[in-house]
């Protein structure tokens, strides 16, 4: 039904998509898998006629039922596209927060598609929207119809987006990372929903993702993209079992999975005779309501209640939970960044450090890498004279650290903006470790990275743990990542730690329903 033949798209001098050929039949789900910058989104946007005007098609064409939608050398025929958009093909975007208009009720927004493409009366349109809401599993459709986007949860918003995409029963649905912004448990519901719609309406689906596991669950065929090219395509299972290309192999291996656990250092030994490095006793963390006005009464909201655990030397303790469960608040309290706490936090060491999630926000953009690595030493010297060093010694230490995190000295004078995400995360780790802290709080350190980079950073963190005898409090929403990294795991839900135990034990015999749900979903 859809054929993309030899498509190449360039922006200026850079070629984003190179000679890509894909085809898609009715009722089929094709997964396009690749890391960021592999050209998968540009391919989809070109197919949909939504790619920006600065893009040029340098070769190939896009066919929909043998009608040429887009051809090399010709400008985008917007009028032609409009006859297909909505009714013939539709799209589900990644970010459900921004793809709905915040000032309009969602019912009206979905209805607009009908108003543009059908001749229904207002009453019929309303019925049709409510029907669509019910079919995507939104309970209380009437109430959702009258809600504004901000009144809905992320999962509900994504369901609304899907309802909007399928309401006209289009023959092609392009889903661009539709679950990436959602929590794991919601993620699976959405995947199930997409599969159900595909079976019911028999439409073709182009599913774009960076997550191989998701693609495996949903798609019948997979195309792997790298640097704008399709490096491999075929039936899903055959690709997973016998990847032909080295890149595909690497991609599959990089995906953290429960099948192949890489041993951590502390495994095997009991935790009884170990020295605790951090004790948390009956800790509750509060959050002051944000209103900064002088006369507003400050309300305290409890975000973590009764946390109780011990972290031992040289151990990695995982903290798993969905967004909003309080894991970040707990970590901030442990680091002393939030003083609105009850209970006790006992540190055996001074100055615990942190590794942040977003490698683009955690390095000061106005400084050089060398300056960033030396700053912790300067700050420490100001607090503790025994740390004072000459400039030469500091530079030496910074270069050492650069090498330790797997980067060369030539980065010393560069700025963060000249580095890739993975390199930034390495610098970020180096910055945390340069003062030799014993405790590191890692808040989703690999979530913002591509899978292959993810594997490298996890490997680096393990290596540094061995070399520098670090203890990690490792926070993640991805239970597979935690499985790979941690000796023990804590599961957190709604501000409470509901389960804590050895990794293997929790995975083999989860006690709580919620833990089972988390495990079952990944």
């Amino acid at each position, binding site marked *: 039904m859809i054929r993309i033949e030899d498509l190449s798209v360039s922006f200026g001098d850079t070629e984003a998509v190179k000679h890509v050929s894909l085809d898609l039949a009715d009722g089929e789900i094709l997964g396009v898998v690749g890391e960021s910058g592999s050209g998968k989104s540009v391919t989809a946007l070109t197919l949909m006629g939504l790619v920006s005007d*600065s893009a040029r098609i340098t070769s190939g064409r896009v066919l929909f039922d043998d009608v040429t939608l887009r051809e090399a050398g010709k400008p985008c025929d917007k009028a032609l596209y409009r006859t297909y958009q909505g009714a013939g093909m539709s799209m589900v975007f990644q970010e459900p927060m921004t793809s709905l208009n915040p000032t309009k009720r969602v019912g009206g927004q979905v209805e607009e598609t009908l108003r543009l493409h059908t001749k229904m009366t207002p009453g019929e349109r309303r019925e049709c929207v409510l029907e669509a809401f019910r079919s995507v599993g939104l309970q209380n459709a009437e109430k959702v119809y009258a809600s504004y986007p901000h009144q809905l949860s992320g999962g509900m918003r994504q369901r609304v987006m899907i309802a909007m995409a399928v309401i006209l029963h289009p023959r092609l649905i392009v889903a661009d990372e539709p679950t990436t912004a959602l929590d794991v448990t919601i993620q699976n519901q959405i995947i199930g929903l997409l599969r159900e719609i595909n079976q019911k309406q028999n439409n073709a689906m182009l599913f774009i993702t960076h997550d191989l596991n998701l693609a495996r669950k949903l798609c019948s065929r997979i195309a792997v993209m790298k640097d704008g090219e399709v490096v491999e395509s075929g039936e899903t299972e055959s690709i997973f079992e016998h990847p032909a290309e080295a890149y595909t192999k690497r991609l599959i291996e990089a995906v953290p999975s429960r099948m192949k656990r890489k041993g951590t250092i502390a495994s095997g030994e009991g935790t009884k005779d170990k020295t605790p490095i951090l004790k948390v006793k009956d800790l509750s963390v509060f959050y002051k309501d944000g209103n900064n006005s002088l006369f507003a009464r400050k309300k305290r909201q409890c975000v973590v209640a009764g946390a109780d655990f011990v972290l031992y030397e040289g151990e990695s303790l995982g903290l798993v939970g969905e967004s909003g469960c309080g894991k970040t608040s707990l970590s901030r309290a442990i680091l002393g960044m939030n003083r609105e706490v009850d209970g006790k936090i006992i540190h055996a060491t001074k*100055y615990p450090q942190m590794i*942040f999630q977003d490698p683009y926000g955690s390095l*000061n953009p106005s400084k050089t890498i060398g300056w960033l690595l030396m700053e912790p030493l300067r*700050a420490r010297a*100001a607090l503790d004279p025994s740390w004072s060093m000459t400039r030469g010694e500091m530079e030496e230490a910074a270069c050492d650290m650069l090498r330790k995190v797997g980067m060369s000295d030539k980065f010393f004078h560069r700025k963060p903006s000249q580095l890739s995400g993975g390199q930034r995360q390495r610098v970020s780790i180096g910055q945390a470790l340069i003062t030799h802290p014993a405790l590191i709080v890692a808040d989703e350190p690999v979530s913002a990275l591509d899978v292959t980079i993810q594997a490298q950073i996890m490997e680096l963190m393990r290596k540094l743990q061995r070399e520098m005898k670090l203890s990690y409090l490792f926070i993640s929403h991805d239970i597979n990542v935690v499985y790979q990294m941690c000796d023990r795991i804590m599961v957190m839900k709604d501000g409470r730690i509901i389960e804590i135990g050895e990794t293997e034990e929790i995975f083999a015999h989860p006690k709580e329903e919620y833990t089972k749900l988390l495990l079952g979903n990944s």
Partner: protein
Amino acid sequence: MKTQKKRKWNKYLTAGLFMTGFALLLGIVGIFWTPYSTTAMSAAEKFDAPSLRHLFGTDNFGRDIFSRVMEGMGTTVVISSLVVLFSGTFGILLGALTGYFGGLLDEIVMRVTDAVNGFPSILLTLVIISILGSGRQNVILSLGIVFIPSYIRIVRSEFIRLRDADYIMRARLMGAGRMRILFVHILPNIFSVFWVSVMIGFNNAILAESGMSYLGIGVQPPDASLGKMLSDAQGYLQTAPWYALAPGLAIVWVVLGFALFGEGIRRQKVD
């Protein structure tokens, strides 16, 4: 997304640099040397039209207007620079402290700036001048005070935006002192925004100084200033239009130059 223009030479910056550079040069030279004495009167040369002898012609006392524009430019630029320096420094200090710490200090400072903003600025300078008396220093002081709030607002909002950034949290974690975080970690990151407002502020200062001189509460005779010249020329608009045109064009030239310069800096940062 990458576009084809990779750091193309910024035309705004070039034009701005040329115009401000020329004006500054004229002004600085004018402080030390002018073709004619700015106070030398000559009854024989009253209202001479522009010629090679007198580039911009002469005024009602037969003084060379080009020389007076040079001197006036110098006065105006020096006053405006000092005004921006004064208000910018206090703006950064107060904006940084209020934005980063918030709380009671923030509340007080913001209400005071609201109050200052509530008055028309020319009225406020008038009040300050009438208390302190006229004269160069007092012009600078009064304009400086009037301009502080605009800088506080800009700096404060940038500090609020950046105080919760991950890299600032990291700086706190590594034990950096508060003042170090404020002025070493955060301040360099707001400069691109701050520079633009300095350029705009500079323009406003030039216009305000000219306006004050025009009203007669600015620089006192025999000092030349562009605004003063404009107000003197008013009566001779019909007979000697060049008298008003010269300082007027000079003001336009400087203001436009700085506006282009500021825009150039902003674009340079965005690209």
